[in-house]
């Protein structure tokens, strides 16, 4: 059972902002009317957004599709640099063009009955569509979500409404367990033995969770962030070292089988 979509046509669509609101400190949720991409996108895929024209920054910015509702894409974004600052300033009616759907999306192994989703901070973004899709297929989903504080537990409501079980940890103990999500994961893997673990979050966290899963003999997929110029496989800026050689995160990922990734040969994660 695959959600792979790599052979699908990539679209260039002029999207219109339906709403854009702050959902946590430094985090926004933007909703874009983008019917053609909305109908084609699969969980784990992303769009490459041209936030601004005429700005001194040129490149598009990659963002995961958090959810799709009808013709609309939801994107959860963290404000970090000039691109995301400009994104935060977009008001209803603004237009932006995007390329999508991009990437292969998450892969659901045949026979999966129980999945563990691990979200670190904004890593929740690409797990939104996934939790919905898995639930629809009757797969039991546990979400382990970590963030610095309660407020930063973005998409918590979605997870609580959709997953069978949600476990929380915060660095400051303001919600769930105090500590890192990796401690939660250790216990959940041991106790529940999921068929597959899906991870997205800071790369350091992702690596630890991958190791935990693989050590326990559980399949694991990780979503990796890389600097991306083209987003469509042409420029080779987004490479990930794997057992099968250099792969491009934009077309061969961003979700990779954790067992394939050669972590130490891979990129120093972007600073954010």
């Amino acid at each position: 059972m695959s959600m792979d979509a790599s052979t699908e046509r990539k679209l260039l669509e002029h999207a219109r902002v339906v709403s854009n609101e702050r959902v946590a400190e430094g985090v926004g949720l933007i909703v874009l009317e983008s019917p053609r991409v909305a109908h084609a996108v699969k969980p784990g895929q992303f769009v490459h957004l041209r936030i601004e024209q005429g700005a001194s920054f040129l490149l598009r910015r990659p963002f995961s599709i958090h959810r799709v509702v009808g013709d609309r894409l939801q994107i959860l974004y963290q404000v970090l640099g000039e691109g995301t600052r400009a994104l935060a300033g977009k008001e209803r009616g603004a237009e932006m063009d995007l390329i999508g759907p991009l990437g292969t999306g998450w892969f659901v192994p045949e026979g999966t009955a129980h999945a563990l989703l691990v979200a670190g901070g904004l890593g929740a973004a690409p797990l939104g569509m996934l939790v919905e899709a898995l639930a629809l297929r009757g797969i039991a989903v546990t979400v382990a979500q970590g963030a610095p504080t309660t407020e930063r537990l973005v998409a918590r409501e979605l997870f609580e409404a959709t997953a069978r079980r949600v476990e929380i940890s915060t660095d400051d103990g303001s919600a769930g367990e105090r500590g890192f999500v990796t401690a939660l994961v250790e216990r959940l893997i041991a106790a529940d033995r999921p068929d597959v673990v899906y991870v997205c979050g800071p790369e350091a966290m992702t690596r630890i969770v991958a190791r935990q899963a693989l050590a326990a003999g559980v399949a694991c997929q990780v979503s990796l962030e890389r600097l991306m110029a083209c987003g469509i496989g042409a420029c080779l800026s987004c490479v990930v070292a794997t057992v099968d050689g250099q792969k491009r995160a934009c077309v061969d990922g961003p979700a990779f089988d954790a067992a394939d990734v050669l972590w130490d040969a891979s990129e120093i994660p972007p600073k954010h």
Partner: protein
Amino acid sequence: MTIEGSDINVDMRVRLGTLEFRNPVVTASGTFASGREYADFVDLSRLGAVVTKGVSLNAWPGNPSPRIAETASGMLNSIGLQNPGVEAFCEKDLPWLAQYDVPVIVNVSGHSVAEYVAVAARLEQDLTVDALEVNISCPNVDEGGMAFGTTCVAAAEVTRAVRAVTVKPLIVKLSPNVTDITEIARAVEAEGADAVSLINTLLGMAIDTDTWRPKLARGVGGLSGPAIKPVAVRMVWQVASAVSIPIIGMGGIMTAEDAVEFMLAGASAVAVGTGNFVDPTTTMRVVDGLEAYCRGRGISAVKDLIGAVKF
């Protein structure tokens, strides 16, 4: 011939020596792969030519990551010529390109003169290859690359050696990181180059003020995009008056007006590089815009723009 304001058909063809392009717009090497990735956005048969990414003799892993960094109106890259080697390229990319009615120009890299020659010799056997573009200007490899493009002697040597093994049109891609690009252009012209491409990227660097590390793993990289356009236009203009072979101009082309600027400066064709990343349809916009520009001004043949800058 110029017919004021009339609603004419514009002859978009340009000629580079024995090569004829249906229009002046080609892709810049390394920004378009072999075209497959752009097929959803670009009708390859509407391009003047496809210039492929650089190929070397053997597979090459490229540089460590991060490989790009954004800069004001530009970007740095240090991809480092990652490629599967000329054999794999001939097996996988050329047959795919052969389905399109578009000239194919293969960008040739090397870490030594012998390697340039070996790659060119292999490509010589393939009928899909319409011309070679020899990259003596890559700033992103330790040996070879740019070193060949920064002295007349080395540039001449590579050109001579490749010329000896190919009867295909030979384009040499020049480095802007030199005191006098006209002297390099003359040197390669003298050795039988049929055309020159310019410019490759300017050597640049960016440092992350949080981590104190260079933004590129390799430290330095190549600057491209609109930021470098004035340097590129200047070099095209200088070279146009120094040599008599045609020029493929590039550096920051995003719009048809940018392309016109390069042609007025003396380019017979123009290549879109970084612009492909910003908007994958840039080449098509430039083709259409160039035609509209000519039509709107009553210019019946786009080639009339070449070198037409007035002083």
